[in-house]
């Protein structure tokens, strides 16, 4: 901002200040009434004692976050549902594995047969 700009702005503001000092009385009265109404809605809070400051601060912060409560609730619900789904999937998968284990162990075929590479090639060669 250069100096001529500032100087002009200052002079304009001086004129505006002068105008504001001579507002019509009806407007001034309405403004004063509006101010009184606003101040009557003001909740004056005494400054809390040092020991209680943290607790009061925490409560007041909790109050401020109240409008976002629904959002947090939805996020937490989604997280819980996700965890339940994951746990269910894990249970199902582990059941599948245990079934395979049981079948392998109770089968007539020895377990080492599956580890033998020759067994695979023998299976491919044997006509069905």
């Amino acid at each position, binding site marked *: 901002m250069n100096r001529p700009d500032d100087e002009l702005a200052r002079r304009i503001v001086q004129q505006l200040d002068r105008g504001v*000092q001579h507002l019509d009385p009806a407007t001034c009265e309405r*403004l004063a009434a509006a101010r009184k109404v*606003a101040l009557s809605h003001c909740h004056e809070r005494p400054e809390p004692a040092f020991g209680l400051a943290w607790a009061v601060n925490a409560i007041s912060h909790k109050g401020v976050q109240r409008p976002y409560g629904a959002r947090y609730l939805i996020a937490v619900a989604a997280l819980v549902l996700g965890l339940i789904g994951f746990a269910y999937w894990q249970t199902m998968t582990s059941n599948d594995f245990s079934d395979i284990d049981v079948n392998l162990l109770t089968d007539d075929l020895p377990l080492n047969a599956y580890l033998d590479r020759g067994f695979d090639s023998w299976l491919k060669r044997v006509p069905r």
Partner: protein
Amino acid sequence: MRRTPAGSGGAGHGTARAGADQHKGGTLATHKELADFLAEVERRAYKQAVFAVRDDHLALDIVQDAMLKLAERYSARPSAELPLLFQRILQNTIRDFYRRQKVRAIWTTPISSLFGTDPEDESDPLETLGGADDSQFSKPPAEQLEQTQVLGLIEKALEKLPARQRQAFLLRYWEELDVTEAAKAMGCSEGSVKTHCSRATHALATILKKQGIKL
């Protein structure tokens, strides 16, 4: 607080800055401090709203809303924060008015176009400049008239400015917010505030020069 009450007659900048320094301690605003702050700022806020909405009654409603919101929600904030908070609330309330007006215009314009326009709307606002106030009788009538006319022309010039330029100019120079505070109140970057301010000042200089006014 930045200034002394407009009604008290002493709107010196030095006093205002001294007052601001007193409140930089971050202590919570008391009921009296809030009352003093509102009394100090209400007239300028009203004029800001008048420049923006060009209607005295709507401007009063806007200022009342802004004061109410400040008192209800932010009365327990440190008094040093009140000017910026109030300006943000005021600017948002004016913006809300524009939004509502836009929505209303969608519905009312087709209807009003059926009935034609009001011929009074086309009158020149400069023709209806207010007369001199009683308190100005101490000055010579010619000087009173000139001052009133100059003020009227400045106010009309401010009304003609684009909203953002006017906002930036008034916040920076009339409300004495610094660039950072003005940017916060306007919800834009500091660079935008500087640009708007510069353009506003140049536009005002051009308009006043055209009117033959030398400040």
